[in-house]
């Protein structure tokens, strides 16, 4: 048995909020608000049904949910509102397949199903005192948003906090209504970039890994937290390693096709780890071989 294996067996799974009851049975929830972010991304704000359901629901930043449209199916999304938001749960959904198409067609007031919270979360306690460099690519900004807002709520406990948020074009950027807040936030160094910039674009132009190299954040006492499409993760991790970040200090969330969400159905595993229970948040040294 290797040392990492031993360490892992001792460490076990981090305690986390779990679903009660039959884990396959969704909780009823209702769509409260729909925000059109881009041509392909909508943000749904949903409220769990039932007396006190929202108050009883606890989760940690980074945990995910399976959203059901009954008759169509289920798909996994990160809860991208911070845990302090008790009025609703927020999900940003890019329309790509059957379920996301059905989610995009919902109207306010319609009922859906929610299985949550699933998965692990960002180890924000372990990150206290460190500089954090957040990197979000496209829809990958969703999980980053949760942990970033959570960390910003207690900014004094952390070192410098930075964000690099990139998308293909300015039109593909979600959370437009928050970008000014982020750019002007006193505790956040926010950089925006797009692959192809129009003339009036005041921010950076270029692919995330390249812009990152230009920004060249120092790896000293720093942790990088990133999420985005698989190809962006691959090259951004390479760039971070090139800047001197240790693989252990690069945290990423992985997305895989999921069905059960509870570590059984065998779809989302990365080697012996399951994205749905051991993830979605991983330290890069655990999964580098599979990126």
């Amino acid at each position: 048995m290797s040392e990492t294996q031993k360490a892992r067996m001792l460490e076990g799974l981090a305690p986390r909020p779990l679903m009660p009851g039959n884990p396959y049975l969704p909780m009823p929830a209702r769509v409260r608000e729909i925000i059109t972010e881009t041509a392909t991304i909508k943000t749904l704000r949903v409220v769990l049904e039932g007396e006190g359901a929202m108050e009883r629901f606890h989760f940690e930043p980074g945990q995910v949910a399976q959203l059901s449209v009954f008759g169509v199916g289920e798909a996994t999304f990160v809860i991208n509102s911070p845990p302090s938001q008790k009025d609703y749960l927020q999900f940003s959904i890019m329309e790509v397949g059957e379920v996301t198409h059905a989610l995009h067609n919902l109207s306010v007031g319609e009922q859906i199903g929610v299985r949550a919270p699933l998965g692990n979360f960002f180890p924000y306690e372990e990150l206290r005192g460190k500089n954090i460099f957040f990197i979000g690519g496209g829809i990958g900004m969703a999980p980053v948003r949760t942990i970033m807002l959570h960390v910003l709520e207690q900014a004094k406990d952390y070192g410098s906090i930075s964000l690099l948020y990139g998308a293909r074009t300015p039109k593909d950027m979600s959370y437009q209504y928050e970008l000014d807040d982020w750019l002007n936030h006193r505790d956040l160094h926010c950089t925006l970039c797009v692959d192809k910039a129009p003339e009036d674009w005041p921010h950076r132009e270029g692919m995330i890994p390249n812009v990152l190299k230009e920004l060249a954040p120092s790896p000293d006492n720093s942790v990088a937290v990133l999420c985005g499409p698989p190809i962006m993760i691959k090259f951004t991790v390479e760039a971070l390693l090139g800047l001197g970040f240790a693989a252990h200090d690069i945290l990423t969330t992985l997305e895989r096709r999921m069905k059960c969400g509870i570590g059984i159905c065998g779809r989302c595993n990365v080697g012996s780890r399951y994205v749905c229970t051991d993830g979605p948040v991983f330290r890069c040294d655990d999964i580098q071989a599979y990126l």
Partner: protein
Amino acid sequence: MSNDRFLAKDALGDFLCHCQGLGYTVYSPQKQEGVRESVVFAPWQKGCEIQLAKATVSPKHLLLPQSEVLFRFRHEKGEEGKSSAVHLEDTSQQAQPTLLFAARPCDARGFTMVDRPYLQGLYADPYYAKRREGLCVLTLCCNSGCESCFCHWTGGGPSSPEGSDILMTDIAEGLVLQAITEKGRKLLAQSDLPEAGAASDQATELRRKAWQSLDKAPDLTEAPHKLKELADNLDFWTEQSRACLSCGACTYVCPTCYCFSISDERRFSGMEEGVRLRSWDTCMARHFTEEASGHNPRALKAQRLQNRISHKYAGYPENWGSFSCSGCGRCVTHCPVGIDIRHIVLAAIALPDTQAKEARS
């Protein structure tokens, strides 16, 4: 003093009837005609022929049916035909007690391997738990090895008791029944089967001979480590998977493959009602991990074979402390192109450490 009981061959039917009387649905191996005979575990009824042959397909469907309803849903329609409320009916507690007659030790051990992720993980699976609780397993020991099975490689054997409630040994004129669990003891106590007496010694002797008949098993201690080293060695897996057809024969006949899919099925007319189904799925198919975006982390059959073999001999052992292969050999016999899991594991072990690392591409 042994508490073994004796079940004469001509009393098999009566015994199974007795079990039905206790509330069990009885499943036994049954021969079905076709291009060639197939032995399948099917519900036994009085008058059915009693077969003792090893089944073509493992009995795992008694715990994990090929498809099962997770819940039913019904939409209540509001304005403009939009769904205003959804009613869900939980079907997790509907399984009835089942008795499995004449499984083989590899089948029964297979159950223990499926038990761990389904019962001991972060969440217990309520559908599986209910079925498992109601399942009584009567296992027939094998009196010899066979060319394609290798239970003793993976920690089992022709008379290994794991997963069984009662072990049965075929001594020609009848079966010697030995209780393994409390459930098994209770079943034997409730029966009027005679004590086995001297037949018990005969059974012990047969079991010993069965063990002796086996070829020496290779040492698989290094398998998890070697397979982990080989995880991203695409050349190795491309070579091993060249003939693979990406069908699901290996996974569906396997007693320990437990992957599934979940999908919603609507009734014919629109959105009013339907079911959420869980159904067998195979990691050897490309669509298994294909995401809606088109991205597929296991797009190549080499990657899928790597995942299947490594799950059984590296990933699962890392998580649960045992191989998840009971060595039944069904994947070997039923693979249309003869891919042999034994050869792959041995090839991985035979690869020197340095080579495994260097060959990484």
